């Protein structure tokens, strides 16, 4: 085990930010801590980087072996790109020749050789991020901490950068913990996702596991649109997303509505939300909020039946839960 966080607690005044938070990350793994804003994700990162002290609990493999890359990179504005990357090595009194060689290799790896003599103010957001990564990786930390690494990028750049980050992390074989509030970002980038709500890790597992097999309605709702329906409504009931007895949780791609004049449900509202639709279905005077992508041409006033479609990703095992 590379990183072991055990029962961390942190308060700011009367606000309980972290509550008995535990997390374990294996060597070389990329784990994203996913949660809404203000849930304590950055506080967790700062504790891992030894920039904050917890009120109680322990962290193994934090301290000087961890380097945090902030959301806005925090490059040193009066140092050139080369000086930024060399900063940690000079601080560790590495011989100048070795520093030049290592910095040269990193700049070349990150495609920054031509920017070596430029100052951070002259770089694009993507280039700044690469400099920040190169600066962090130059000191070969045991743990790399990323605070919302894609938050400052255009939507179109996010996916490319996510894949790029993943490739870099694999090439350097460095254990990485990333915090984000963006579900897509976390799923695109991570080996495992830790869903953090109310200062606790509610579920830790592979992206497919936390998406298709959430262990609570709160986790399911946070991971994306979900329909919580009574079993009695469904034609097919082998649901693995059992929220509580008698109900199940379904993702839009798992919900299929079958238009039929004798259908048991009445469509009272339909809204197109891009890849799926939100609709309100009524049965026996009760309204059910449903997200579905089948069929695409649902109409208000139609009668429908509902069934559940199996999805390939569901078969992936749940890795681990807390």
């Amino acid at each position, binding site marked *: 085990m590379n990183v072991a966080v055990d029962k961390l607690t942190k308060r700011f005044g009367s606000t309980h930010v972290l509550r008995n938070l535990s997390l374990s990350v294996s060597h070389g793994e990329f784990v994203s801590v996913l949660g809404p804003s203000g849930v304590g994700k950055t506080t967790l990162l700062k504790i891992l*980087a*030894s*920039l904050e002290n917890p009120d109680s609990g322990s962290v193994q493999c934090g301290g000087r072996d961890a380097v945090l890359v902030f959301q806005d990179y925090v490059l040193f504005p009066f140092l*050139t790109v080369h000086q930024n990357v060399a900063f940690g090595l000079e601080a560790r009194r590495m011989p100048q020749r070795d520093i030049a060689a290592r910095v040269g290799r990193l700049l070349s790896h990150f495609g920054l050789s031509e920017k070596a003599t430029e100052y951070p103010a002259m770089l694009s957001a993507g280039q700044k991020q690469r400099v920040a990564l190169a600066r962090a990786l130059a000191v070969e930390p045991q743990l790399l901490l990323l605070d919302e690494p894609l938050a400052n990028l255009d939507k179109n750049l996010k996916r490319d950068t996510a894949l790029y980050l993943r490739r870099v992390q694999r090439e350097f074989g460095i254990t990485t913990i990333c915090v984000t509030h963006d579900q897509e970002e976390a799923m695109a980038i991570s080996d495992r996702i830790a869903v953090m709500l109310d200062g606790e890790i509610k579920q830790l597992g592979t992206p497919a596991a936390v998406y298709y097999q959430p262990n609570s309605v709160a986790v399911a709702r946070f991971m994306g649109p979900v329909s919580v329906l009574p079993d009695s409504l469904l034609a097919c009931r082998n649901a693995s997303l059992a929220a509580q007895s008698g109900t199940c949780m379904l993702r839009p791609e798992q919900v299929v509505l079958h238009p039929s004049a004798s259908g048991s449900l009445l469509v009272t509202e339909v809204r197109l939300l891009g890849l799926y639709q939100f609709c309100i279905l009524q049965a026996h005077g009760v309204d059910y909020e449903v997200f579905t992508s089948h069929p695409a041409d649902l109409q208000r006033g139609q009668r429908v039946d509902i069934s559940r479609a199996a999805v390939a990703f569901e078969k992936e095992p749940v890795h681990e839960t807390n």
Partner: protein
Amino acid sequence: MSRSRSIRRACAFLPLMPFVLFIAAGVGYTVIQSLGLWISAQPGESYPAGYAVILRSAWFYQSLLYSLWIATASTLLSVVLGTLLALLLRGLPQRLYPFALMYKIPLILPHVVIGLIVLLGFGRGAALGRLLAAPGSSALVSAYVFKSASFVTLLVYAVLRGFDLRQLETARMLGAGALRSFRALLLPVILPPAATAGVIVFLFSFGAFDLPFLLGASRPAMLAIDVYNRYWYRDLSARPAAMASLVVMFLFSLLFVTVYFRLVRRQKHGIRHV
């Protein structure tokens, strides 16, 4: 096209004209009197130029050196103490900041009040005076530092507020000690406002009159006191020398500011193109 641009540029300077004319008139009148002209009410009457008098006077050189010493000591102490105070303020938690605003009090106190406070502290019977045993210089430097350190703090703190403290956290994570972080990250931020404040404090202490009048030694006296004595307490023939001293002070200040701005421009040029 270029003519209209020239007109626009000239118009932009118009609001400055009264100020420029006022200064030019003052300097011009001083230069003329330093040459022995326009001193007497009698038309055509003139005196010998004052420059030969002051350049042959050991008293003038002693006053010049004394003024430079007071200005240099006051500036260095003000910049160091003011910068340290600004750094201290930047590290304070937000909730304590209202109390820390007390550093601005000397800024709003008139120089005379500060002079009197220091005079009471440095008087023969006062504890500080006995402790330092050199009332003239020490009292004067202390008064300048008391007044100017908060001015330095004001300028440096204004820039430090924009400094992202996470830079220091990042440096620490990368293994840097406090000294390296200060040298590489804080010093480039602090240096420009501290130097600008230093130039202003130096020129002010070099040429000021009120505090030296209250607290300064009489032999040698600060240059401003020397000029005052020559102008008011001697006959008309001493006036060209008094005005010549003022011209020398003016030229020295001009030279000082020119050298400073040249250095600053070169430094900025270096940062952009290294």
